[in-house]
């Protein structure tokens, strides 16, 4: 156990650096887990240590990556992998190696052979992933290996292989299920059932290839960690959890993960806003209930009962900057819009670049989970004269045309970076909105250090309404938690 303790502590430290909070007591628990489970089964050890170190759902991906670094499956080359393969001498040799590997990949994909896929990933890294200038970088590259291999091209071959197998042995699957041969319907029906399920085969293979890519990446990180130390690799080569990814930099993959993080947060935000009102409504005594309750204490009303109002779902107005300078942020904005639209009874959504356009119908009529980024790419109805964002004229336009949508029960949420391209900020318009609304909160994707730098007028607006930094999902969570209940 002694040699493992530093590794465990290292893993816990790396997790903390990636924003996964854990305490000393958790590490002690993890050590107890290792003692209880032993080291025979690595996957069980992975699950056990996860149970001790993790506390919420979104942390699993970063944990898995780090676990592979600190508790590697093997040292050096894997068994059955020829490590002495020199890097391919020229492009032609690399291509021929890749073609051979691709063929084996197609076979493994068609057979759902997990073990073969695992060892194939190791071979791909060993044969195609070594960087040529070893002296300077001394490592392996998954990007290079996957570029040459192009695993997605194996899908068609795997499909063909599966089709041949189905045609070659008619009713083969029927034999496998056993005993169904006797009834004519059984053998006749099974192939057509297969044919319907075969509609999913292509999607399943695509998912399997994506999983294979991840295997190659994991294997590459393992080899690199050996060369340069787990500490260093875990700092640079492991993607931070979706929670910590800045909205402005989020790519398509991260957005998909964000979607899963934001939906429950929106639900929480909605219930928090509802709770704000319910508490205020407390205080009125319900005479009937109090009298009935006092029966058990001999007619003495020891525990007065309060009237309960049904939870009020407040109205919400969302005002979102949709300009291209905050493109990454507006992807988050759209996600939040969609999630909030499902939670509020009356929600109105406005987008602007320099004039305001109502987007409520577009968002509400779209099916849940649909990708609206494309629908909003055309911002023609939110611009006038030029394509730059202008908060001043947008706010003025809002107060001129849409101020009646804000009432004393309305919460207003503004999303944007308050960079107004050196035009007049018109703070009075924002003051008008704040005066009418129940509350106004502003979520800004920039850090407070950059507020007021350059063309940002954030400090000016922050004086009028509450402005919160909201650059990633973790900060959105904090904002939701801080809302006074």
């Amino acid at each position, binding site marked *: 156990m002694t040699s493992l303790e530093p590794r465990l502590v290292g893993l816990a430290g790396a997790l903390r650096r990636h924003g996964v909070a854990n305490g000393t007591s958790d590490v002690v628990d993890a050590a107890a887990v290792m003692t209880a489970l032993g080291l025979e089964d690595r996957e069980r050890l992975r*699950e056990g240590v996860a149970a001790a170190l993790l506390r919420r759902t979104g942390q699993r991906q970063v944990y898995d990556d780090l676990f592979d670094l600190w508790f590697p499956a093997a040292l050096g080359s894997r068994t059955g992998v020829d490590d002495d393969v020199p890097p391919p001498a020229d492009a032609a040799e690399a291509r021929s190696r890749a073609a051979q590997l691709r063929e084996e990949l197609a076979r493994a994909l068609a057979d759902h052979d997990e073990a073969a896929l695992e060892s194939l990933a190791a071979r791909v890294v060993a044969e195609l992933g070594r960087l040529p200038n070893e002296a300077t970088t001394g490592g392996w590259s998954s990007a290079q290996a996957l570029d040459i291999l192009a695993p997605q091209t194996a899908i068609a071959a795997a499909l063909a292989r599966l089709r041949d197998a189905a045609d070659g042995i008619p009713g083969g699957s029927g034999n496998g299920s056993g005993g169904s041969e006797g009834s004519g319907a059984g053998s006749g029906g099974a192939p057509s059932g297969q044919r319907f399920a075969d509609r999913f085969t292509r999607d399943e293979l695509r998912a399997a290839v994506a999983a294979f890519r991840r295997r190659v990446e994991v294997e590459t990180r393992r080899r690199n960690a050996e060369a340069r130390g787990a500490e260093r690799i875990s700092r640079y080569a492991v993607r931070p959890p979706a929670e910590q990814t800045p909205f402005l930099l989020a790519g398509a993959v991260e957005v998909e993960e964000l979607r899963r993080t934001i939906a429950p947060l929106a639900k929480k935000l909605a219930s928090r806003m509802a709770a704000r009102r319910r508490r205020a409504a407390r205080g009125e005594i319900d005479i009937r209930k109090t009298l009935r309750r006092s029966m058990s204490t001999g007619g003495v009303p020891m525990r007065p009962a309060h009237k309960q109002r049904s939870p009020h779902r407040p109205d919400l107005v969302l005002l979102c900057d949709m300009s291209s300078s905050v493109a990454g942020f507006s992807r988050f904005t759209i996600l939040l819009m969609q999630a909030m639209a499902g939670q509020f009874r009356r929600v109105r959504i406005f987008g602007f670049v320099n004039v305001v356009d109502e987007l409520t119908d577009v968002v509400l009529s779209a099916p849940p989970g649909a990708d609206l980024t494309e629908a909003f790419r055309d911002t023609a109805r939110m611009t006038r004269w030029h394509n730059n964002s202008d908060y001043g004229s947008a706010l003025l336009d809002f107060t001129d045309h849409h101020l009646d949508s804000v009432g004393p029960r309305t919460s207003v949420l503004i999303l944007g970076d308050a960079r107004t391209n050196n035009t007049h900020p018109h703070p009075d318009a924002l003051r008008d909105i704040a005066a009418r609304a129940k509350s106004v909160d502003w979520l800004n994707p920039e850090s407070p250090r950059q507020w007021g730098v350059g063309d940002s007028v954030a400090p000016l607006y922050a004086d009028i309404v509450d402005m919160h930094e909201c650059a990633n999902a973790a900060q959105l969570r904090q904002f939701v938690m801080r809302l006074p209940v």
Partner: protein
Amino acid sequence: MSQARGIPQNRAMTTAFASVDDVCRALADAGYLASDAIATTTFLADRLGKPLLVEGPAGVGKTELAKAVARATGARLIRLQCYEGVDEARALYEWNHAKQLLRITAERDGDGHWDALRHDIFTDEFLLARPLLEAVRSEDPVVLLVDELDKADVEIEGLLLEILSDFQVTVPELGTITAAHRPFVVLTSNATRELSEALRRRCLFLHIDYPSPALEQRIVAQHVPGLEATLVESVVRLVGRLRELRLRKAPSVSETVDWARTLVALGSTDLTADVLRDNLGVLLKHQDDIERAAKALDL
């Protein structure tokens, strides 16, 4: 390590399972097919004596796990169903006011042994034990299931902290009651509210996701024995595909089983577009989900 947390040595440290494989076997006998992750964490919760916090999508068997552990170990299941507004009186204990009043009235004719009476009406006889106290006081081994903890208010979590770390309950009039057996505690949450760090820290965390296709096939085959193996495979593949679509509510394991039962009830021997189109409502519960799936599956 658990000794360091202040659990007395003389407490019965009974562990129900010998190994992870033992957990798998015992749970399977109790009708619950566990993935490796579930079996490992259950084993650890039992071995380390820590509560188990289970999260995951609806319908993957979070509550069922607690029931299966109870069946597998022959322990009694005590369940605290949380809801908004559940309080101490519903979760922990309550004094039986009516009975206390009767007792006082019955004594009124005597010459005021007030001191005796005062001690008398705050005894076990007048105490109504609610699930948490019941679990701590139980003479037999118990599995305590605190279901949907996220629905309860934050205050209840504070109440749970003493029970979860020390397995004891303090009733001011009676003193501290310590558990004879350490209960096997399972907390479930659907993450509608963020649970506090203090609570999370005291628990082992388990995220149950949708099972792997192979495991789901075994689960379906176990619950619906009348279904052909090829058909089971098709059903599971269909459900797997549906989960990848962005739906309002993805089909859960229980819905897969319902769907398999539907096929048996209809007497279908294979999965066709017609059967699927007519019965998609068994798998999907929202109209827009059904339309979306029908379009994606080309029905």
